[in-house]
């Protein structure tokens, strides 16, 4: 088999085995209801993780997404509370702001040649700070349009529901896969992750691509913020702290190389599902505590890092002896 698919295959295998183990213990977990909830509960994380996948594929990192999600939520809540604008207009506004925010970070990273880690860390502080400035309280969103959106779902056989936000996440993943593999921009992202110097030699517009990657991540974080506000019907500046970490974990567990250049958007979806599955299992179990989630995810991270390290070593060795 092509070694490039190995991490992805491993991820899928882990998910299937884990799910099988869950079902063996709690047959109730084999239901469309559980699957529907898995999608709905992780929708905001999944959407943000798509953006993170692109950033990591290009060899960067984006620490700001959790803060941007919270900021978007607060912005929507404040807009809907104190102005009369329609939620859809507010959505557009929020997306424009977060996209511009991401583009700005990308421009700083490229033009000032600063490490993405620090730039997006500053971005994280800034976004969280703006959320605080807008409001430090949790603001409920009571707009009737929200209730309308929340009532939209597709009923699966067996009683499960694909909610609007769950479906949106799947759509975003589909779009992400399309961008990654069927656009020049997508190829350029992989090229950047393969090596900036070589990519430049091969004619990839480095600056434009970098800005677009972080803009896309900002856009998706904004979209994730909208989804999160739909999910919780509120905007709270202290929400979604540390979501960037969950997203990074999902990306790595999804088989993407943290050093960039190799991985699949689809893998991230499986990574998200694995994380969600662990939580669902713990809920079903009732006696297990939530901290096992973190420990398990840490172990999975370690396993995947080792796997990829081994793959890289094997490829190197094979090439040296070629």
């Amino acid at each position: 088999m092509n070694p490039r698919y190995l991490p992805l295959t491993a991820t899928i295998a882990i998910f299937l085995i884990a799910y099988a183990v869950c079902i063996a213990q709690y047959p109730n977990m084999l239901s469309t209801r559980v699957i529907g909830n898995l999608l709905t509960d992780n929708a905001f994380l999944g959407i943000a993780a798509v953006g993170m996948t692109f950033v990591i594929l290009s060899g960067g990192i984006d620490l700001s997404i959790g803060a941007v999600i919270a900021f978007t939520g607060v912005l929507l809540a404040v807009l809907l509370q104190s102005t009369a604008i329609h939620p859809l207009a507010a959505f557009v506004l929020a997306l424009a702001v977060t996209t511009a925010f991401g583009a700005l970070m990308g421009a700083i990273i490229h033009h000032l040649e600063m490490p993405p880690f620090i730039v997006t860390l500053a971005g994280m502080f800034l976004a969280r700070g703006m959320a605080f400035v807008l409001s430090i309280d949790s603001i409920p969103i009571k707009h009737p349009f929200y209730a309308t959106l929340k009532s939209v779902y597709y009923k699966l056989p067996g009683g499960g529901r694909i909610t609007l936000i769950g479906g949106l996440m799947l759509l975003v993943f589909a779009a992400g896969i399309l961008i990654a593999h069927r656009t020049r921009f997508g190829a350029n992202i992989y090229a950047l992750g393969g090596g900036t110097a070589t990519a430049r030699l091969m004619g990839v517009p480095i600056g434009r691509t970098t800005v677009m990657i972080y803009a896309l991540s900002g856009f998706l974080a904004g979209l994730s913020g909208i989804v999160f506000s739909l999910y919780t019907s509120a905007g709270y500046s202290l929400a979604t702290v540390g979501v960037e970490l969950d997203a990074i974990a999902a990306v790595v567990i999804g088989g993407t190389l943290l050093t960039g250049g190799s991985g699949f958007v689809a893998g991230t979806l499986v990574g998200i599902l694995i994380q969600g599955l662990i939580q669902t299992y713990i809920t079903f179990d009732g006696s297990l505590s939530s901290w096992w989630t973190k420990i398990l995810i840490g172990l999975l991270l370690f396993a995947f890092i080792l796997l990829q390290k081994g793959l890289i070593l094997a490829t190197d060795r094979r090439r040296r002896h070629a």
Partner: protein
Amino acid sequence: MQPASSYILSATGIDKIFPGAKALNRVDFSLRRGEVHALLGENGAGKSTLVKCLTGAYRRDGGRILVDGADVDPQSTLEAQNLGIGTVYQEVNLLSNLTVAENLFLGRQPKRFGLVDAREMNRRARALLAEYDLDIDVTAELAAYSVAVQQVVAIARAVDLSGKVLILDEPTASLDTHEVAMLFRIVRRLKERGLGIVFITHFLEQVYAISDRITVLRNGQLVGTRETADLPRRDLIAMMLGRELVQEVAGEHGAKGEAGPVRFRFRGFGRKGHIQPFDLDVGAGEVVGIAGLLGSGRTETAEILFGAERADSGTAERDGRTLDLSSPRAAIREKFGFCPEDRKVDGIVGDLSVRENIALALQARRGWARPISRGEQDRLADHYIKALDIRTSDREKPIKLLSGGNQQKAILARWLATNPDFLILDEPTRGIDVGAHAEIIRLIESLCEKGMSLIVISSELEELVAYSSRVIVLRDRAHVAELTGSAVTTDGIVEAIAASAGRADP
């Protein structure tokens, strides 16, 4: 002489100046339609600088470049590509994490309904590679294929994009005989199509097998351009390694010849894949020179002697006592020192001061708990700055701001400060100006007089002859000859390299 229009590419009077060194000095180079033109020279001769000036990776500081008779001034490799000049490097400059087809069509993927038409792209990629007799899965990652296949993909991309001039920079360095033959078939076919091909290599057999003309560079200067058919191998080697001696240096070989008793003895020392086992004796106060063309195993010999690569066979002794050379740290404890060839990567610690760079090896040997006091460091640095005439405004200047020659002297000072008994110098005089050059040679001679044992690797044969009492000749990662006494002459070395080179076929 053919009319100028028959040249697909011609460069005249190319100058390139780097801080502290003139990398190219009024170099002329011309390429005919449908010829394979070998560009030869040792490391630092200016081959890659010339190529980079032609492909726009560097801006030249003087001279003209004509493509198809029209003046051009490429500012980037992309622009050079559009002018028709494509390049393929040894370390394949494609993205190994993309598929073969993506590599071929990056930035110009065929589209359908606004999306990349992967099927069409793959079809075209297969068609393109079929011209090169390559039938592979174009949807697989490039990394999945051997360097030879990657090389062909790179050539296919370069020719498809540019189509007039193809520059092959050491394309055969990591290929086996069979793969080289495949590559040459492709080169001949491209030649028939009228492309001008520049071929850079250090395998002389390949030069004679494929090239029509040869241009030799040395120290940034053009040595000459000849028809391959009219240039005997021996003359070619002489052109590359040079015979015009810096008279001043040659005049004073004082130290050589009077080697003391053997002090360091290596038997069957080697490492698989790096250098075949060799025997080597070095006496006190003796300089043993190592000669050979690029890639013959010179640096590998140095690295294994210093423990940078651990030997997997053989023994090393000093006066009958077994030496531990398992790591640089162990070698340093045995009073070994090593000035590496690639100063920037392996030698200098750029951001640290000249003082700290000089004190580093001594400090590392003493261990962290026994620091060299600041006063001692200052004295050490000042002593060597004066003794070796290191030109720096002050000892606290970051070493990366010094010129190449002065960096080299500072690295030498780093090792002299450890008071070594066995010093390995890998190309100590490469890429440094004439003045510093002579000083380093004098230094080698005086160290030798003081009883130090030295191994000096150099592609400057006159230099080797001037200070070495013996010269080991390398080829194909093996020691093939040892010249002693009156046999140590430039002619002798050239002959030894040529003789052994002629013996085996590629």
